[in-house]
């Protein structure tokens, strides 16, 4: 839907609660310069959430929503878990469905939108936890990549089942002691980024959410590449501070530690040569657009 269609009927404006008036006046729908830097100065697409205080997932969610290139024409698919407590408050239409079938839902959804709106860009973005992506839903995750489905899969990797109380998951690191891993996890963390690239993803990134500009970059890349080439995958470390015994203020430090040299979340990207060339071109365009916008702003002053 164009930004112009996200507006309140004039006769009803006065009666609408202020958060909706704000959404129309100050959200960044239709702004091709939108960025994580808008957080704090514009209306965010996430209204509120019930995640734990200091949860890195909540900030990751906000960065992602601020980074989507086309929120007014994006539909998101979630899955059961902590994210599904946030999704009702996100001002982008979204679907929960079942636990683990998110990439199946997204496959049908993306194809339906393509059939219904052949001349319009409609982005589909999956956002689910590691249990949904790698364990119960791995079949559907990978099959959507094999089929070359044109959407982005984002995995919030908190290395366990957070919403059910901290049980072992496939992305948990080896040796970690948790519920259902009473003597420590006995096998290695599943290498999904590498599997994703081998399975047909055209762009793969794995990183923590300690640096918003990096998150913005990979999300934007992933969505743009999914439009043009095929499936893309982004894995973000969003530690569950509650279940790994950290304090509310320790999320950022945990992520910084995990991305240090030699640790398991050193930022990495995989992409095909075609995608590399495409993104380079895209970067040049973005820079030119930013420069033009700056110049226009200066001229206006």
């Amino acid at each position, binding site marked *: *839907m164009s930004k112009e*269609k*996200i*507006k*309140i*009927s*004039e*006769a*009803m404006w*006065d*009666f*609408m*609660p*202020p958060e*909706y*008036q704000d959404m129309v006046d100050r959200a960044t729908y239709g702004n091709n310069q939108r960025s994580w830097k808008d957080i704090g100065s514009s209306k965010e697409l996430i209204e*509120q*959430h*019930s995640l734990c205080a200091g949860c890195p997932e909540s900030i990751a969610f906000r960065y992602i929503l601020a980074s989507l290139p086309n929120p007014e024409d994006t539909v998101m698919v979630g899955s059961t878990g902590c994210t599904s407590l946030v999704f*009702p*408050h996100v001002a982008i239409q979204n679907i929960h469905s079942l636990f683990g079938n998110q990439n199946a839902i997204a496959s049908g959804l993306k194809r339906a939108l393509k059939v219904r709106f052949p001349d319009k860009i409609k982005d589909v973005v999956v956002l689910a936890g590691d249990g949904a992506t790698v364990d119960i839903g791995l079949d559907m995750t990978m099959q959507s990549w094999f089929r070359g489905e044109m959407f982005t899969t984002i995995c919030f990797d908190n290395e366990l089942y957070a919403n059910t109380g901290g049980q072992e998951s496939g992305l948990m690191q080896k040796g970690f002691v948790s519920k259902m891993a009473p003597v420590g996890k006995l096998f290695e963390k599943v290498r999904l980024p590498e599997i994703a690239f081998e399975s047909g993803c055209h762009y793969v990134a794995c990183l923590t959410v300690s640096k918003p500009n990096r998150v913005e970059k990979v999300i934007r890349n992933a969505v743009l590449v999914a439009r043009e080439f095929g499936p893309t995958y982004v894995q973000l470390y969003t530690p569950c501070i509650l279940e790994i015994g950290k304090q509310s203020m320790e999320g950022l430090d945990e992520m910084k530690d995990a991305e240090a040299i030699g640790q398991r979340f050193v930022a990495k990207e995989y992409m095909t040569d075609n995608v590399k060339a495409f993104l380079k071109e895209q970067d040049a365009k973005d820079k030119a657009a930013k420069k033009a916008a700056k110049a226009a702003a200066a001229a206006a002053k």
Partner: protein
Amino acid sequence: MSGYQVKPGPEAFLPPSASSMGIVLPDPGEGHIEGRIVPEDEAYELAARKFLEAKVPTLFPGPLVLWHWNDNAAEKAKAIKRLAEAIPARIIPMADYRPKYPKIIPEVEINPNHPNLTIWHNKIDACIFIGVHCHQANLALKIIRGGTSCYTMAMCAQAGHEDACLSFRDASVAKIDKLTETVLRLKKEGVKSQGDEFKQFRNNYTVSYKPSYE
């Protein structure tokens, strides 16, 4: 024949859906009153009277009219405002359907997941839903019937609502205006609004309304 009637509650801890009790929706040109299928004109007449009899008549516009997603929606919104002014009635919006955290502010909004809170808080005794998606309208109507004594009405753009005490189908600007005209005609005929004086909450300010007894 089922003897079930769709009356104001409080009906039960969990009232049955009217449909499961054999209540069938009206066909085009018909309305529905408490389980009876009636000519639409009868529904206009009773709806107008219910609003004028009420102490706290209230309109609940939903997303399909609150949001200007097409020109018809914006026109329906204007028609709703005309209806509110004719009665006069409060307007309390149902802007979307999410279960809100940590709670709603019942003076200014209604939510399909716990509409009874808005009814109780404002002591609403007659209401109409306009522009709410049918599924969410039915949730709200049934919860209100279950736990409150409010007389519920629905102006549905599709097939109508048997879970409301009174419902119209195929709502349009013309139909909303016809209800407004019926209210104005009854007033002219001497039916007085029994509404309490009220403050219409509007964003950050309020407007006082004194029902006209002319």
